């Protein structure tokens, strides 16, 4: 395995300031956390509800900025980037899968997957279309290319969301409880998909999950407790 760190967190602190009448209440979500994710890694982030897993994932993905400390993606400090630069970076290097599939309801499966490819004009429409249908076929949706999200089952929608996250060939795929909303059979399909992706294409994956069984199938488990790294286990 390649030892190159693709995501690196250095003393990342995240706190939120809320105004309650005249008072300002500061709540610390992540006091100080440091770790890195290597290229080709397949890591599960686990921990009780409210421990800060989602917050951590958003920071890793440049959707949110740390209060202090640094986040590096491909050795570039993303906390220093402007909003526009962050947007481009998210588009090219990151793929997100959320607990809820969050597809655009007006567009069919194919168009949803094409969207990130067309956002930056890196692909022509026909290139984007053939790549999107290839991805969807690989995820077993070749029959559903032209279905709108409301014509797809929850599991199918989540697979479309995964195809969309993979569209721009991201350095890292970040998933936040991607099976949280699915029945166990659909969840199983998604787990298998992630494992396959990591095994066959070396796709770096970080996935937040509550599912012990799924976590045990990954290569590494990062356990979070009260915003702190409780344990970091390699399974192999």
């Amino acid at each position, binding site marked *: 395995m390649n030892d190159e760190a693709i995501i690196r967190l250095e003393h990342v602190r995240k706190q939120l300031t809320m105004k309650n009448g005249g008072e300002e209440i500061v709540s610390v979500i992540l006091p100080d956390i440091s770790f890195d994710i290597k290229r080709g890694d397949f890591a599960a982030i686990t921990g009780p509800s409210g421990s800060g897993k*989602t917050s951590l994932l*958003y920071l890793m*993905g440049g*959707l*949110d900025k740390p209060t202090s400390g640094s986040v590096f993606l491909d050795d570039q400090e993303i906390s220093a980037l402007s*909003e*526009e630069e962050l*947007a*481009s*970076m*998210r*588009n*090219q290097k990151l793929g*997100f899968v*959320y607990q*809820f599939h*969050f*597809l*655009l*309801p*007006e*567009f069919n499966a194919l168009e949803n997957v094409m*969207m*990130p490819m*067309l*956002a*930056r*004009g890196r692909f022509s429409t026909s290139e984007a279309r053939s790549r999107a249908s290839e991805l969807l076929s690989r995820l077993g949706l070749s029959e559903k290319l032209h279905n709108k999200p409301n014509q797809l089952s929850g599991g199918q929608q989540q697979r479309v969301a995964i195809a*969309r996250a993979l569209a*721009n060939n991201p350095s890292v795929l970040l998933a936040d409880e991607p099976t949280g909303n699915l029945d166990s059979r659909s969840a199983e399909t998604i787990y298998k998909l992630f494992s396959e992706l990591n095994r066959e294409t070396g796709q770096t994956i970080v996935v937040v999950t509550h599912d012990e069984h799924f976590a045990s199938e990954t290569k590494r488990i990062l356990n979070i407790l009260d915003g702190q790294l409780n344990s970091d286990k390699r399974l192999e």
Partner: protein
Amino acid sequence: MIINRHLVTIAFRQLQNRRRQTFLTLLGISVGVMVLITAVSLMDGLLQSFIQKIVDIAPHVIVSGERVKSPVPDQLIVSGNGNHVVFVKKVNRERQDVIKNYPRMESLIKSDSLVQVVTPLVSMDVIGMFGTISQPVQLFGIVPFTENEIEKFSNSMVSGKFDALGRTPDGIMLGTTVAKDFTARVGDRMRIVSQSGVIYSVRVVGIFKTGINDIDDNSYVNLRLGQIIGGFSPDEASDLYIRVNDLPKDGLVASTIERETNYKAITWEQKAASVVALFKMISGIVYFLVFFVIMVAGFGVANVLITNVLEKSRDIAILKSLGFKRSEITLIYLTQGLIVAIIGAAIGCVLGFLLIEIMSSIPMASSSQSFVSSSHLMMGKNPMYFVWASLFAVVVSLVAAVGPSRNAAKVNPVEILRGER
């Protein structure tokens, strides 16, 4: 920033999802644009037809008996308290309101190559009597042949022949309003009472209708008879009417005459200035009201976008997390405003065109209250109406779209994606 058509596609799809609201907004803009186009066409048409009639059948320059300058003082006494006394030697008592020796004036004016026709007139207020009816009449004495080249009476005869006036020394030609008032017909004899109380018997030889109510109120006799009734000498005239070859030069002709003869010469623009100004003011008010219609349509656009942005905040968050930039999100919603405006304006232009066609084909009863009467409503026809109305709708819609679009760009994806269930 790439203005790519995918943004336009996203904009379109979101609008399609809110069909009813989008349709109502489209309707608002269409109606606004239609009303604006029609109002502009109506006002423009009225003004144009008014000006056209004047240019066709009114004198371009009128020389009147009024002197430009008063006589210079022969003696001036300046007293200590600021009062001046001016003496002017009056050799003969002359009428200050007539043109003396008009034939010489006429030939002088005609020598100007810009002048096409000159014709002398005398005007006076008299009492007309027919049967039991008697009422004041504005009477003119004219030279029928040259007068006709300016006022084109021969095209406006509703009964009788214009030529008959020249052949009938005691003939009178009545405006249609006058003829109606007296219930007089061609061939009837009526009487004219001059200001000095002398009664003249005249014969109606023709009745005309120009459509300009000021003129249809008048009556015309031959110049010589007019001079006799009004107490003018044979070489005196009240006015000279002039038609020029080249209309924009009428001001030049007028000022030359004033300089060379000291008689007051006014152009039709000066004479019609107050009416034109009134037209402009009425149009201004009409446009102002119509602008409000489009403003309201603009609120409709803002409304559609605000609801879209609110309802689509989840999608906006997704687009942002996929790497769409703030500016691109703004553009999606500005594009929605633009789409509604363009489609609305296009429909409005078609409706406006149809409405103009319909309105200009509706027959209209003439009313003596208006400046100009005609059988149909004169609608202005100019492609620029459509261009300006559409442009206005687009600008208003874009302005209305700016606020919601910027709000859309401000959506924070983290907040939305966290909170969404």
